């Protein structure tokens, strides 16, 4: 009976392959998770931005902002009143919401890109 000659590096290769598959699985799971988060945050961002637009219209913020284009010279002589009128009409809750969702979208997309690059790096190696 011939003795089976095991290659010494076979064990290491098998373990390495298992680790590779495990890492790939983890990265894929995170990719799907952050992909879903990004998709959701994009939808929420569009809704939040629309809401901001509606609120800014209702409060007169957009009209007041438009004055800076049409009556710049007059506004520059009454800058303090103009800046205060903008600050008073700014729909702060909507702005905060848009800002928060935008940050979350950027965070999700950064994570997604990071994991995509990790998968690419893993496959190359």
């Amino acid at each position: 009976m011939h003795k089976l000659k095991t290659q010494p590096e076979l064990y290491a290769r098998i373990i390495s392959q298992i680790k590779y598959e495990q890492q790939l699985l983890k990265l894929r799971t995170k990719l799907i998770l952050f992909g879903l988060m990004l998709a959701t945050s994009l939808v929420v961002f569009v809704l939040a931005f629309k809401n901001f637009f509606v609120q800014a219209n209702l409060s007169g913020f957009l009209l007041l902002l438009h004055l800076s284009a049409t009556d710049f010279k007059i506004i520059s002589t009454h800058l303090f009143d103009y800046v205060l009128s903008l600050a008073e009409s700014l729909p702060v809750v909507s702005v905060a919401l848009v800002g928060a969702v935008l940050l979350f979208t950027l965070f999700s997309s950064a994570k997604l890109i990071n994991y995509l690059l990790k998968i690419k790096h893993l496959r190359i190696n």
Partner: protein
Amino acid sequence: MELEQAVKSKKIKLGAALLIGALILIIVFAAGVFVGLEKAKFSYRWGENYFRNFAGGPRGGPGQFFPDRNYFNPHGSDGQIIKIEATTIIIKDETGTEKNIIVAADTAIRKDRIDLKLDDLKINDNIVVIGSPDDKGQIQAKLIRVIPSPLP
């Protein structure tokens, strides 16, 4: 060298970032308080003036009359002209609130690229106003711009 290393250390950077962040938050908070106080003061004066001039009833202050969702902007407004009396324009905004706009000799009134006079303004014109509040809850207008009517 040790000082240089200490300055570049993560803890110092984190501490500095936290301090700057706290400073920005404090400035923003102070600005918010200032704007909020201005709106509250103007709304109170508006309420006092409204009761005195229109309602004729007992003065109960703004809490009894206004819905609590809004305070008025004292430095700017927009709305439709409902009345013109001498140098006072009364406008009604989208929430149905009436505001007195005082037109002075140096108030700029504009429509498109044309300068107008107070007599050129008509009932149902839509205007945007920039000004400053007085102690009667009125807006002393610095700029009035006539805008096209909004779509129904």
